[in-house]
């Protein structure tokens, strides 16, 4: 599946009302580690049709970043059935990201 750009206006529909688990990647253009994590997150989206993958640009979506207390990027959040169930800060290997979604 392709990666969905998440904004304040589609967050409710794409994330909270999703019937699949959602992996959200909070990032910004000026963030080096985000650039390393980004292609791995893209791979996960391509390889796993059972996971919805979304990206939140913290510069464009300061309200969303504030709501989830994002204080360091990249930050990954996992949502299931409208609830945030897991989070991880910083660059982590692909297997750990998949564990985060499954866990």
């Amino acid at each position, binding site marked *: 599946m392709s990666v969905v750009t998440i904004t304040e206006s589609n967050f409710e529909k794409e994330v909270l009302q999703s019937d699949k688990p959602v992996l959200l990647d909070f990032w*910004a253009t*000026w963030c*080096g*580690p985000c650039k390393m*994590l980004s*292609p791995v997150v893209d791979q996960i989206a391509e390889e796993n049709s059972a996971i919805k993958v979304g990206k939140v640009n913290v510069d464009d979506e300061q309200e969303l970043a504030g709501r989830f*207390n994002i*204080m*360091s990027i990249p930050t990954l959040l996992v949502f299931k059935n409208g609830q945030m169930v897991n989070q991880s800060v910083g660059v982590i290997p692909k297997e750990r990201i998949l564990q985060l979604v499954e866990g």
Partner: protein
Amino acid sequence: MARYDVAILGTGPAGLEAAITLKIRNKSILLLGEKGSSEKVAKAHTILNYLGLPSVAGEDMQAAFLGHVKEMGVEITEDRITLVYPMGDYFALQGKNNEIYEASTVILACGVSAGKPYPGENEYLGRGVSYCATCDAALYRGKTVAVIGSSPKEEVEADFLTEYAAKVYYFPLYKAEPKVKEAVEVIREIPREIVGQMKVKSLVTDQKEYPVDGIFILRESISPANLLPGLEMDDPHVKTDRQMKTNVPGCFACGDITGRPYQYIKSAGEGNVAALSAAAYLDEKRRQA
């Protein structure tokens, strides 16, 4: 982007020996660290047990090392790597100023860091504690932050943070008088503990408690587990086998980072083994391709 065969982190005896061995094996190398080799070597008094260099002063040993490396045509790229990330068939490395390098294998030869984490540091990492001002400054717009700087090199980071944060405290861990912007408040107290609840709330020093939203801890070296996520440790060292392999395929370690004894000849010897292991790994991968 150029992809090197091997990226070597560190310019002490382990890193330099690895570099010359790989040069002989005709591999492309990116040697990252201080141009003047390791400070630890230069500051050493007389070294009595380095074969071929009897009773040598640290400074002279450093000069001998650097002369050898130069003669072999090995160059040192002056940068400090803040993150190494396995991308599958290569590694991406991030430099201090957000430069990105690529290499097929990585040799960690960056020494062992003496500093213990502050109480609360690991607990609140990413929830107010950060190691990278360039990365996270923009998330602290209008907030109050503390910067703990281990050397004058970190002063620019405190200055940079004033562009975003409403208030920046700077805690120098060294004697020299910091040259920072007027907006930065320099505090000569010793940080003791990071206090929080869900996220950072304050920095406690030997004298006072400072309510802050973020704490930037800027040290000379980052703990290897934070440098390469997923790296298996035997704290404070990196776990390796006799081939200097770590648990991450394509990543090798040598020198003080792998454990005691902290001896120059041991570091150089391990650098040689790590280099040959990296070369064998590259050749094997090429055969498979």
